[in-house]
């Protein structure tokens, strides 16, 4: 190998390959990230009726006069995760046009705590929404 080859090798090493897009990282995350752990005392896992039922139950719980020794929960945290956007491959629709599916995922978590017993009531709600962006073809 000549000195000139070494120069070329060094120059090549200075080139920066384009990084993978967010879609690849999101796909890896789905396969490699551990499943979301079930934290706290109670977890409600649904976007629909279960959440409503949990809210209703909690409302009734708060509305009732606390008995002595019964837990008295207070809201301690309400948060929404950053929205994770995944841009998928274009698809062909029934009318022959093309569109690119875009999937958004996020999570809402609300926590209440009884300061006396340090027990927590947690409502965890994952959400997903997929939208089709029309593509123009020429």
């Amino acid at each position, binding site marked *: 190998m000549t000195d000139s080859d070494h120069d070329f090798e060094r120059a090549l*090493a200075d080139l920066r390959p384009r990084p993978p897009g967010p879609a690849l*990282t999101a796909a890896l995350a789905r396969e490699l990230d551990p499943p979301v752990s079930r934290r706290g005392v109670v977890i409600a896992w649904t976007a629909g009726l279960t959440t409503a039922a949990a809210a209703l139950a909690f409302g009734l719980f708060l509305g009732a006069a606390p008995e002595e020794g019964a837990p008295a929960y207070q809201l301690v945290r309400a948060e929404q995760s950053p929205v994770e956007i995944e841009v998928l491959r274009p698809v062909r629709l029934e009318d022959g046009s093309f569109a690119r599916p875009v999937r958004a995922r996020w999570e809402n978590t609300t926590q209440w705590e009884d300061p006396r017993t340090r027990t927590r009531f947690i409502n965890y709600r994952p959400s997903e929404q997929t939208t089709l962006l029309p593509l123009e073809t020429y």
Partner: protein
Amino acid sequence: MPDAHADQDWRAWFADHGARLRLIARQWTRSDADADDVVQEAFVRFWKHQRHLPGDPNALVVTSIRRAALDLLRRTDRRGVREKAVAAETETVAWFEPEADPRLQALAQALPLLPAEQREVVVLKVWGALTFEQIGEQLQLSPNTAASRWRYAMEALRKLITARVHD
């Protein structure tokens, strides 16, 4: 390369090495999208099952990428010749980030023009950080043949860059 045997977060490891892994995958695939699929399959296999194995993690992950790429090629080989030709012609995505240095720009434009058997040796040596012996194992060549292809590639790059400078 950082130690992938340790209890390292995959995101940190992939942030450091994802770009070069994708460039390696791109040498054995027909499009960027195929390269993404190959990197996904290979990296998941490496991270879940192979990173704790003894040996050079770099060589392991490259082997995993090559295996995934060959599997994909076999699966898609039934496609027509025309489709392959169209894909090859329409693939215009740059492999590298833009560079201000004209010499680096010329190199970035010249590399994809090399014959595939020379280009894969260059990519495995520079971005795969493999020795000629390891490259030979990957490509089922003798180390001498790998080294010979490297020399031809350097000569070809030199000519391509000189031609561009004179244009």
